[in-house]
């Protein structure tokens, strides 16, 4: 399950799962009339999507990207500028902008990605977060476009109060479904195998004829484009952009924490992680935030996840289940391979 391969094509179980997931996500806001709950779901689904998009580059390709806040912010500002400067109009029309924003970001990112991908490991991690600070500085300084530190207002959506959150929720949910579909395709295609090879040993992969440059670029651009799409919806929902809010170092770190908790390099891991941490983060800040020890609790959770579940919930659970049903020797062998690949991934040489 960690190694994608062409043999894991569409299966009945997977199909049922996908349908059930779509069904649950679709009816969730309908069964609860609570505004705050739907609002919480909007952000949770957004985080699930962000963590899944990060997983493409950070998980499958093994490139520790810490600067996805930059792409989120680009998407958010593109939405704000599109609605306020370009006069796209209100209502549902801004949602149409998501497509050009995602595609545009993916394309614009390509040359930058080429540059960043010359570095690896820790250097890549640092450069990616540096890129984020650069984009943030630009957002502060190009005042004519972004309003700088005075902020930029996105026209308030005219949806009726009773169902105000729903359009945003469904937009986020559709993007999450798209992101998961992309992840699934990547996992089951040659691209996934190539990314896997890049993560295990990039130089050897290139030596064996894998087009490492190309697959890394594709993973980077798609990951960035999807992240920007979520940023665009967020901007319309939150109605107000400020460089420090829209381009936030903690955004990528939150997504990474969710991916780690759920299980990197698994399809559902980031979703599980987001479903747990997203609401918990917001809810705890709301209920217990009055004590500044909230940060300590967050850090403790962070460390507990890393030490107790270094592979994440999904792989750990799956292994537990396998251990219960030790029937198939094939499964046991695979288990070992999966574990090895996780540990060897951390080797810097």
């Amino acid at each position, binding site marked *: 399950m960690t190694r994608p391969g062409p043999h894991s094509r569409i299966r009945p179980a997977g199909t049922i799962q996908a349908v059930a997931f779509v069904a649950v996500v679709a009816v969730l806001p309908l069964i609860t009339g609570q505004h705050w709950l739907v609002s919480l779901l909007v952000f949770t689904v957004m985080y699930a999507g962000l963590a899944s998009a990060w997983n493409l580059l950070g998980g499958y390709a093994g490139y520790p990207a810490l600067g996805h806040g930059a792409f989120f912010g680009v998407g958010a500002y593109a939405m704000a500028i599109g609605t306020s400067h370009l006069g796209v109009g209100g209502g549902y029309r801004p949602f149409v902008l998501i497509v050009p924003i995602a595609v545009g970001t993916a394309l614009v990112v390509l040359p930058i990605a080429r540059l960043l991908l010359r570095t690896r490991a820790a250097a890549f991690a640092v450069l990616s977060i540096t890129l984020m600070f650069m984009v943030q500085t630009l957002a502060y300084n190009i005042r004519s476009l972004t309003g700088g530190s005075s902020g930029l207002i996105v026209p308030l959506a005219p949806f009726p109060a009773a169902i105000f959150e729903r359009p945003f929720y469904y937009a986020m949910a559709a993007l999450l479904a798209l992101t998961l579909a992309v992840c699934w395709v990547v996992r089951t295609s040659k691209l996934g195998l190539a990314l896997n090879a890049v993560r295990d040993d990039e130089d050897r992969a290139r030596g064996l004829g894998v087009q490492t440059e190309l697959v890394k670029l594709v993973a980077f651009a798609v990951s960035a484009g999807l992240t920007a799409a979520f940023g665009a919806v967020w901007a319309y929902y939150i109605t107000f952009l400020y460089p420090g809010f829209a381009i936030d170092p903690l955004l990528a770190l939150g997504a990474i924490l969710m991916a780690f908790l759920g299980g990197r390099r698994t399809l559902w891991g980031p979703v599980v992680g987001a479903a747990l941490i997203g609401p918990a983060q917001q809810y705890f800040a709301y209920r217990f935030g009055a004590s500044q020890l909230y940060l300590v609790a967050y850090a403790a959770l962070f460390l507990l996840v890393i030490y107790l579940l270094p592979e994440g919930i999904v792989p750990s659970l799956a292994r537990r289940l396998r251990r219960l049903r030790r029937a198939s020797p094939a499964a046991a062998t695979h288990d070992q391979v999966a574990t090895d690949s*996780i540990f060897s991934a951390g080797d810097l040489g």
Partner: protein
Amino acid sequence: MHLFVQATIVGILFGGVYALIASGQAIIFGVTRTVNFAQAIFTILCAYLSYTLFTDFGIDPFLSILVLVPAMFAFGIGIYVLLLRRLSRSGAELGLLVLYGLGIGIQGVLDFVYKTNNRVITPGYANNSWTVAGYQIPEVRFFAFLLAVAVLGTLQLIRQRTKLGRALRATTQNPVASRLLGVDVERISAIGMGLGVAAAGAAGGVFGMILPFNGNTQYDLLSKLLSIAVLGGLLSMPGTIVAAVILGVVESVVAATISPDWSAFSFLVVLFAVLIIRPQGLFGRRLRGAL
């Protein structure tokens, strides 16, 4: 021209403090292969401790270094033994996140204990300066620079002239070979971690005298430390020091001659430019493998 020289002087002086903090980070990276995302909060932690020692006990921040450096050395060893050692198998990526998480936790404790007001350590000489040939030399920054030179010199002596230093350098270059040659890599790594954190301890007090700080200041400092680390090549001590001084000077000069708005940005441009030509940084060796 006067402006340019004045800005350069100020930049070099504070660059020394950056160099001190960043060198600690480089030593830690050398022995653990983990970018210490908590180096900034360690510095802030020591700034707070110096603050308390100064305001409650009247101990001068330059004197409190004598207490803080050994304490932070022990703290660094503790972090290695309790948190990082057991990760060695699963790699540097987790270490980076562990240290980042630890940093958030420490910030939470600091916010709780000290509240989030900006603090600044103000001994009597905090505002004094000398005028040399028409240029202002702030006393605190000058002493901070001297301190940085002294500590970095000591570290360099340890690395070059002692058995421990040889073991440190060997571990940094190749842990596996060092182990084969009989170096106790875990012990050396723990000491390296201790030295790196102690460097932040030495810098904390002067940082708190030069700039107002609170827990949140760590992000500003962290972004600078990360840039320095990459430009310097992560492992190299000389590279780190050069990169830190370049950062200090570029920021100061751009801020004074163009606009402070673009000072941080201009350094990042320098960083990107260098990395296009030399992806391994100014002095670095190429690192292999993904995380």
